[in-house]
């Protein structure tokens, strides 16, 4: 037997007009964590779909060997039988069912169709112990945080006796704690001899966890190397984009001006748990021409704070909002937009875009008034405005009539940004503006942010990625359990400092 558990040889996968995979070679050793990195659209997901049987044998060229034996899957069941398990970026659990039901969904322990629940429950308990999840097997998925749901996915994969576990951006939606937890479990699985293929944009994680790194770019394997001391993030990034990035964050000196947004004694209750304060007596200011970073772990109330100010979250709100020194009553998002406060949501697909509408219709959606006359929308003004933003933000789309669901993540995000720019905001709140976006597009979005600040817009940026918070913000407010625990200046602040306050730290008044 060879030292490789998996060998993918000369894989070619073509879609009409595109060669998604061009002679890819990818080998995974037994019991290693093998990171697969590359920009969005590089071909990572396609390669994994070939491996997991989503694209059956015959639709691609090349060979897949597992333990030296050639595999010809007709479907995903075949790959599961061969010991390949995949956990997708978007979780696939049935929310209304409990953990046990989910784990054995489709492969229930049964006799003549009657489920043996006792066996299922005890088996589930064993799997949960293995992934270190303390919830009971009969807990409904809907009651679990996203981090715990991810654990259930892993338990589900383990229930199928996997030898090769594929994780596609597993920490994209997790906070630092849950990510850490997940990485530990992957390490534990490795010790038990399970090989992991780890796809991530978070290079820091890749660096910390991977034994071997394979980089693919434009459907080709660029290189495979072992992750030793000499490897650093820049080395990986260079391989990914094929060019030198000397500076990840285009930091520019900003000169903060007047206060444009002032929030005083802001308290909001959680609509799902009406006696729980989601935001507890928060006060802060945002200035013209600065980037205010909001850091905090998931569940600390960052999104809730900004959504409630924007009029899209919360019950029993109390406190005051002043926009340019004028007290403002925001009941609905449209009140906020009218006063120049815009909010880019963290989930662009669900709440940022109308995916079945085209680029043009999305960009103008919040500003139709400005391009309408008494006889309706002026189609030509609309095209003109859209062309302007497509050029200015370098949105890559074959046409402005392209449905936004067909765009890449980075371009989708730029469309949402364009929508808000067209609404001429004074304060622009960006919630995770670069989540799930490739390195090149990230950089472009940072540059757009700098341009806006230069034009006098006040930007408030929520981000889970500490380097991003530190790299882009002028000031950083750290949240923990619905309160601010620190206000930090970007200079002289380390990731550890932010983390310290995000996990509770000392309550400092600033």
């Amino acid at each position, binding site marked *: 037997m060879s030292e490789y558990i998996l060998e993918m040889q000369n894989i070619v996968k073509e879609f009409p007009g595109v060669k998604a995979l061009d002679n890819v070679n990818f080998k995974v050793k037994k019991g290693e964590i093998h990171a697969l990195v590359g920009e969005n659209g590089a071909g990572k997901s396609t390669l994994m779909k070939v491996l997991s049987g989503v694209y059956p044998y015959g639709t691609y060229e090349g060979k897949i060997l597992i333990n030296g034996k050639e595999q010809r899957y007709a479907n995903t069941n075949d790959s599961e039988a061969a010991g390949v398990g995949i956990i997708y970026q978007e979780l696939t659990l049935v929310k209304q069912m409990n953990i046990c039901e989910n784990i054995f969904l489709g492969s229930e322990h049964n006799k003549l169709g009657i489920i043996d629940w006792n066996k299922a429950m005890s088996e589930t308990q064993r799997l949960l112990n293995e992934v270190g999840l303390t919830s009971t097997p009969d807990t409904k998925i809907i009651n679990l945080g996203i981090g715990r749901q991810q654990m259930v996915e892993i338990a589900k994969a383990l229930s199928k006796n996997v030898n090769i576990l594929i994780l596609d951006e597993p920490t994209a939606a997790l906070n630092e704690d849950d990510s850490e937890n997940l990485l530990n479990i992957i390490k534990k699985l490795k010790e038990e001899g399970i090989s992991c293929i780890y796809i991530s944009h978070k290079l820091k994680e890749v660096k910390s966890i991977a034994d071997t790194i394979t980089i693919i770019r434009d459907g080709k394997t660029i290189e495979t190397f072992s992750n030793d001391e000499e490897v650093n993030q820049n080395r990986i990034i260079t391989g990914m984009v094929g060019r030198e990035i000397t500076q990840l964050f285009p930091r520019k000196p900003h000169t903060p001006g007047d206060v444009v947004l002032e929030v005083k004694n802001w308290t909001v209750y959680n609509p799902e748990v009406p006696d729980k304060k989601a935001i507890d007596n928060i006060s802060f200011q945002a200035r013209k021409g600065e980037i205010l970073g909001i850091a905090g772990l998931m569940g600390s109330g960052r999104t809730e704070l900004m959504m409630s100010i924007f009029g899209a979250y919360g019950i029993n709100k109390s406190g005051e909002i002043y926009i340019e020194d004028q007290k403002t009553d925001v009941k609905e998002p449209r009140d906020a*937009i009218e006063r120049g406060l815009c909010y880019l949501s963290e989930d662009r697909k669900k709440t940022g875009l109308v995916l079945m509408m085209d680029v043009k219709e999305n960009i103008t*959606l919040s500003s139709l008034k400005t391009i309408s006359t008494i006889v309706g929308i002026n189609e030509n003004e609309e095209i003109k405005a859209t062309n302007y933003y497509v050029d200015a933000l370098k949105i890559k789309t074959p046409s402005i009539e392209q449905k936004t669901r067909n765009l890449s993540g980075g371009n989708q995000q730029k469309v949402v940004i364009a929508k808000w720019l067209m609404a001429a905001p004074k304060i622009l709140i960006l919630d995770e503006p670069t989540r799930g976006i490739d390195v090149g597009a990230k950089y472009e979005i940072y540059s757009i942010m700098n341009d806006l600040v230069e034009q006098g817009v006040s930007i408030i940026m929520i981000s889970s990625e500490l380097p991003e918070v530190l790299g882009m913000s002028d000031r950083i407010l750290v949240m923990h359990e619905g309160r601010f625990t620190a206000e930090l200046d970007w200079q002289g602040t380390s990731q550890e400092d932010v983390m310290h306050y995000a996990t509770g730290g000392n309550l400092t008044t600033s």
Partner: protein
Amino acid sequence: MISKTENKQNPIDIIKLSLRNNIRQYTMFIALISIMIIFSLLSDVFLTPRNLSTLFLQTAHIAVLACGVVLVIVAGHIDLSIGAVVGLTGAIAAILPARYGIGLVPSILITLAVGALIGLWQGYWVAYRAVPAFIVTLAGKLIFEGMIIGVTKGATTATSASFNKIGQGYFPTLFFESTPRDMIPHDTTVIIWALVIAAYLWLEFNRRKERIKYDFEILPKSLFVVKLSLVILLISVVFSIMAFYLGMPYSIMILMVIGGFYTFLTTQTTFGRHVYAIGGSKEAAKLSGINIKSRTLWIFISSGILGAIGGIIFTARVGSAAASGGMGMELDVIAAAIIGGTSTLGGEGTIVGAIIGALVMSTLNNGMLLLDVGTTQRLIVRGLVLLIAVWVDIVSRKKNA
């Protein structure tokens, strides 16, 4: 990307692109033409101006109602009360003159107001009380059906000849008398025909001029001429059918005005755009600052008013209002919209599509009646057509994705 000159793409490519982008509308249109060709081969009577004019008359109220339900379905709701609203408003329109001696015009206005009130009532529950439209309009169906019995007292009320013209009558001739048998076209219809073509040309040339002013690319002259010719041909076919029979029916005029207005509403106005956004993603629409509640309320008011218009046309065509009027009509209307490409999931659908869908359904009905196909088979065929239309839609959508 933008050039002052004409689009430099190969005309064939432009046609291909346009075909691909509007595949749904074209498929429906081709399906309609195919159905018509099949029936004309099987029956000598089908393609006569007389039969086709009847077909138009049979379609008018369904097509008018379909315009309203397109908005409702696009916004992600449903209206199951359409049939009951048609019955109730039709009964009111019949009874006001018959029992209370109210004039034609005032009773029509009152009927429209009742339609608006019904829409306000249902829209309020859906928009401001967050009860699902399925339930609100199902409840509405029961409530309005009850009211019909109350209003009609179970009896059938005949409507006046002048009222019946709305559903059965034709525009009078202006200068020359003409009959279906002579080959003299109906003059009023010809004048409207010419006006419609003139209006269409004005719109297209104006649009082209505007685009040139904005420095956007325009269709090459050859294609532009082809496009104009095709549309004019289509308009002419429809009008010549009417012109060589008894002329243009009032109900078709009403349909054209409403179809035109709703096409404008859905494609050219902020309101229309918002409706599509709400149906596409309610959350994204809300975060984009759209007033979902007020939009929803107006969608139902529109549906209520169109229900009343449909009720008037339908009652006028039948010539009387009965307690069973409009029963089950909502299903024909919803089927028309869906066959015409309105997505049951919301966010997609066109007025033209819905009108074509209504024509498909009534052509099937009309053709099968001519061929003496029994009610059993007719219902089965129409049911299968609805099923297959939606299936084809789903398949084509998968291919596009």
